[in-house]
């Protein structure tokens, strides 16, 4: 759109479509365009620069330090999200990333519900030489977490990464189970765990509902945008940041153990505004 010749109605219509197509959502798209119109850009290039500046200011935050080193030992991170979003694979990738940095890591296989969930994480653990604590299928996820945390505390482990079962935020009892998991962590290590929402980059406007509801069950302190290699724009994160103040911390860029990067606002905007 920005290669169009001038600012006219066609330009604004194309810009609106481009943002909508990037899953930015109606509210934010109309808001951004409205703000942009008031700044009276004289050319499409200037409009692009202004929009970029506006969005960069929204993403002007530090990646939380606990992503790079534990604020206290063990740093407990609960990975939550809807079914199939990429949690288990993300837990493996983050485990690998941290262990390559020299930190000790335990992966807690707290999905005791889904078929072969424990096996899936166990295979990752073997491949990456990461310790996995799992329980019997059908056992209480809280009990598995308790074991993982006891072991982490006694061994002075730096990170406990908690893989949880996929769950739709519309299911009350599953959201209560997640709350209980947070309480187990709180009780065992004396402080609240970090909640991370794993979000599929191809998700549409339901992402906002997911973030809102999951935040009620566990303190969501960051979002991992998985499957960003799908080339989806992931525009929903603008609303997650703007409305809920959530930082996007990591981006999943494939199915391999090293396919994870820290979130780069510049890369994100480059794709969104391309």
């Amino acid at each position, binding site marked *: 759109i920005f290669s169009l010749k001038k600012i006219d109605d066609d330009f604004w219509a194309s810009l609106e479509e481009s943002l909508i197509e990037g899953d930015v959502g109606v509210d934010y798209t109309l808001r951004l365009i409205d703000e942009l119109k008031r700044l009276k850009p004289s050319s499409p290039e200037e409009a692009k620069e202004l929009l970029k500046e506006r969005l960069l200011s929204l993403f002007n935050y530090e990646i939380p330090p606990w992503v790079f080193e534990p604020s206290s030992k063990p740093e407990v991170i609960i990975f939550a999200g809807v*079914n199939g979003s990429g949690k288990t694979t993300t837990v493996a990738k983050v485990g690998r990333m941290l262990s390559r940095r020299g930190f000790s890591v335990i992966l807690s296989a707290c999905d005791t519900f889904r*078929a072969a969930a424990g096996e899936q994480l166990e295979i990752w653990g073997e491949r990456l030489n990461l310790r996995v604590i799992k329980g019997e299928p059908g056992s209480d996820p809280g009990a598995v977490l308790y074991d993982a945390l006891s072991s982490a505390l006694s061994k002075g482990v730096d990170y406990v990464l908690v893989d949880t079962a996929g769950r739709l935020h519309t299911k009350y009892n599953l959201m209560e189970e997640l709350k209980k998991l947070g309480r187990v962590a709180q009780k065992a290590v004396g402080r609240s765990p970090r909640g991370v929402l794993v979000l599929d980059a191809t998700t*549409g406007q339901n992402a906002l509902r997911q973030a809102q509801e999951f935040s009620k069950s566990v303190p969501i302190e960051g979002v991992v945008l998985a499957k960003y290699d*799908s080339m989806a724009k992931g525009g929903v994160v603008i609303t997650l940041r703007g409305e809920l103040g959530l930082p996007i911390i990591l981006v999943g860029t494939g199915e391999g153990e090293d396919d994870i990067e820290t979130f780069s606002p510049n890369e994100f905007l480059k794709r969104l505004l391309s």
Partner: protein
Amino acid sequence: RLRERFEGILSLLRRKGKLSEEDVDNALRQIRLALLEADVHYKVVKDLLSKVREKALKEEVLSSISPADQVLKILYEELVGVMKGGAPRLSSSSEPPSLYMLVGLQGSGKTTTAVKLAKLLKKDGKRVVLVAADVKRPAAKEQLETLSKPLDFQVVGGKTPFDAVSSGIRLAKERLCEAIIVDSAGRLHIDEEMLSELRELEKQFNFQEILLVVDSMMGQEALKVGSAFAEAVNLTGVILTKLDGDARGGAALSMSYVLGKPIRFVGVGERIDDLEPFYPDRIVSRILG
């Protein structure tokens, strides 16, 4: 918000006696935003609403007794028309065993749906072989095995998807099974190599049906995803999953529009029983909030 928009449109239109062209355009503007909020692709919205506009601007609609309801009826019918349901049962090949394959993006629900379909076939008295053609994902075969254990289905795998399908066909013939369901690996619609793999599988084997499994919470990407998979293989239908959530499901409309293929089933939960036939009017009501 979606609900507010529609109630706003309705009350606005209902207050008027006869509708003017401007009234219809104002209403369509709101309807457009509502559909976009529901994740329907903007190109699909544009095309469908221009059709609605054309029909709504007919004199008999504008000066009918309740033009507002007329316009909404036209909208509703236009959307339902795009989403004609297909047969909520798998078609059978003239010569058994019938070979079916599920394809789609990572995490869309293929493995779970494969066993759901197997159970459906079993209810119809058919014997089913499940093929674990996902040789990449850790514990993919174990997942199929664990899910199908209570129903006692045979699960076969292989070193490659081609080996797995061949083994599945061989076993089905030996055991006189009427159906083979192939669970394939999740893949990106932009992964040329993985799409070629599907093309090769289609060339090598005679599939009775190839169904695209789509997560109902997908956003604008639905249009690209649908066309890419449809271009790679001859899809016979779509299965929409996770409808037990609260996603509006606009991706369903985009998919139907771009594929021209029917949505056959919907996944409404994680259990093997959680598969239902697709009803177009239900999803349209859901999209319209």
